């Protein structure tokens, strides 16, 4: 809800109206069978749902626990983000919006939005830091192929935070025609709730699939946490199952005691930023920190409000996973299962490798493989000194 301790809608007065408009549209859409049907059709025929829940046999043998992988990496676009961009852009279309904007860091959300805009015939403009554009040429190329316009952001550090700032400015300026497609289950209400709804398919499918395959619920489920969209989506399937432990892996980065991390839940404190009251990495005066993670998609100083609440209530357990642990998991899954996970997803996997051992031998564990790691191969090569 809008007035829980975490969450809310802390935005410029210029956006108050459009957020109310989005909320109303979302409320009617989700209870309109035609919308739900249209959404499921594109989820199935364009995005490739449902995604498999695959048994990781060699990893399971190694751990003595049954590890199941929810294969969001097989979704069109290569990550779970497509669930949300499809939902949001169908909603934008329903609202009569004629222009979509989004910000992007490494480019993943920009690509997902551009791709979805092409499929749904909605023009897309993407804000991306000039530094990131330089670093992520392939994603810039993808967005251009999809017909999206990419605006380089030269302000500030010319990276994600600056791109967000510019996208917000665009939205404030063009609020009538434009829908701002959010990248994660954060930001002002109703975005966190809406994106949870669109991502809940991850958890709902996983639960049904595991019951079909084993007849039992898992001991625990695992997701990585940037803003938290794949986590809230996964948890949505299991939060009412009191015996299922919900784990979240956030980035401990260098894990050297420095500020080179993005472990918001375990090291952040309550603040109000990017439209929401939640946990943030910030200094004592409220200036937002610069963060670090090997995984661009986790490199964010805040976290969705629902996750902050789940931590406070004790329902979910969040653990910080270092770059190195994630890299190990990245290599382990590649070697043992023939699946290269995204660096983001490798955090969830690393946590599963570690924490599943706290559960009985033979117990089942579901890891959300939120994306594929093709995008990380260059960086991996650099880290391992291959190039």
């Amino acid at each position, binding site marked *: 809800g809008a007035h829980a301790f975490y969450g809310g809608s802390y935005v410029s007065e210029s956006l*108050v109206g459009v957020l109310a408009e989005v909320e109303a549209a979302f409320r009617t859409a989700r209870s309109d069978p035609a919308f739900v049907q249209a959404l499921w059709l594109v989820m199935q025929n364009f995005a490739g749902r449902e995604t498999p829940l695959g048994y990781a046999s060699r990893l399971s043998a190694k751990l003595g626990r049954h590890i199941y992988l929810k294969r969001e990496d097989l979704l069109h676009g290569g990550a779970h983000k497509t669930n949300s961009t499809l939902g949001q852009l169908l909603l934008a279309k329903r609202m009569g919006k004629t222009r979509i904007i989004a910000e992007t860091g490494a480019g993943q959300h920009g690509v997902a939005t551009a791709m979805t805009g092409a499929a749904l015939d909605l023009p897309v403009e993407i804000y991306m830091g000039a530094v990131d554009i330089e670093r992520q040429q392939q994603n810039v190329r993808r967005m251009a192929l999809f017909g999206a316009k990419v605006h380089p952001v030269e302000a500030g550090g010319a990276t994600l935070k600056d791109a967000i700032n510019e996208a917000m400015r665009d939205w404030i300026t063009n609020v009538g025609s434009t829908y701002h497609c959010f990248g994660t289950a954060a930001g002002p209400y109703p975005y966190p709730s809406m994106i949870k709804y669109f991502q809940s398919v991850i958890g709902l499918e996983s639960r049904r699939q595991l019951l079909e395959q084993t007849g039992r619920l898992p001991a625990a489920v695992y997701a990585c946490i940037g803003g938290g969209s794949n986590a809230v989506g996964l948890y949505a399937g299991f939060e009412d199952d009191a015996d299922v432990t919900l784990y979240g892996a956030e980035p401990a980065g260098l894990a050297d005691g420095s500020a080179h991390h993005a472990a918001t839940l375990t090291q952040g404190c309550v603040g109000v930023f990017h439209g929401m009251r939640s946990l943030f990495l910030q200094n004592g005066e409220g200036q937002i920190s610069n963060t670090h993670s090997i995984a661009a998609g986790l490199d964010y100083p805040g976290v969705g409000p629902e996750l902050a609440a789940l931590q406070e209530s004790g329902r979910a357990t969040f653990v910080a996973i270092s770059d190195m642990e994630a890299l190990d998991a990245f290599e382990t899954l590649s070697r043992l299962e023939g699946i290269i996970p995204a660096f983001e997803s490798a955090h969830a996997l690393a946590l599963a490798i570690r924490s599943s051992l706290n559960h009985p031998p033979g117990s089942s564990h579901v890891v959300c493989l939120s994306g594929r790691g093709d995008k990380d191969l260059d960086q991996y090569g650099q880290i391992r000194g291959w190039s």
Partner: protein
Amino acid sequence: MVMTHRFTQLFAAPHRKAFIPFFTLGDPDPGASFELICTAVEAGADAIELGFPFSDPITDGPVNQRSMQRALKAGTTYATCLELLRRIRSRYPALPIGLLLYYNLLHMRGDRAYAEFADIGIDAIVCSDLPFDESEGHMQMLAAHGLGCIQMVAPNTPGDRASKLLDHSSAFTYVISRFGTTGTNEHFDDEALRRIERLRQSTSQPFVVGFGISTVAQAQAFWQRGANGVIVGSLFSLCIENHLQSIPSVHAFIDGFISEVQGGKACQNVQDAASPTQRVVAAPSFPARNER
């Protein structure tokens, strides 16, 4: 309670046209910032609006963002800002001072922030990322400490909501001139001016217009349509940015611009006489002018 009276008093005459410059506290550095603010006051600013620098000023445009980054880089902390405010208040006891803060700064400072501001003699506070619907606690604290509340009205704020916001502003209401963030503007379309006109016709509460105003003519146009004041900020931030190596010329620009604005008022007041809805206010408008 007494402190809000500075804005109340400023807007007591219904057709008093206030020119309110905005500065980021600490830009380009705390010392120079203080001097620039003094120049603005002494050039004739009717009141001032001062912003605490914030790492991620989303409702501001790139110009003010860079201004805030300069201030932070120059070592401006929350304490620095308080100290600057104390010095300004001490020099200009009668000057209406409004603050702009991103809400997270207030949130992190906690309740003591309000007491501190009251103690310094701040008149009113606006948080550009704290909409009315989330500001109940904030308004209570302002009221408890006798600090004026400034609500913001946007171009797309519906009429009934605008009325509510005007009613809940205890100092003045900040009316956003156009869709967009702060910044300088070549041109306001007619609709922007008509919006002000309509708002004026709907209320007798004081409101000032901000975002994008960067010429004397624009200020005059908004006054003419009924705004009690205009806020000009990015124009000065941009001037600082462009003359970091020659701050004296920034002083000259501020002095020149504000002098021109204030000098123009006489002419405009004469012009206004032609308008049946406007009255002539012949006396120089700025009480703080000779305070130094």
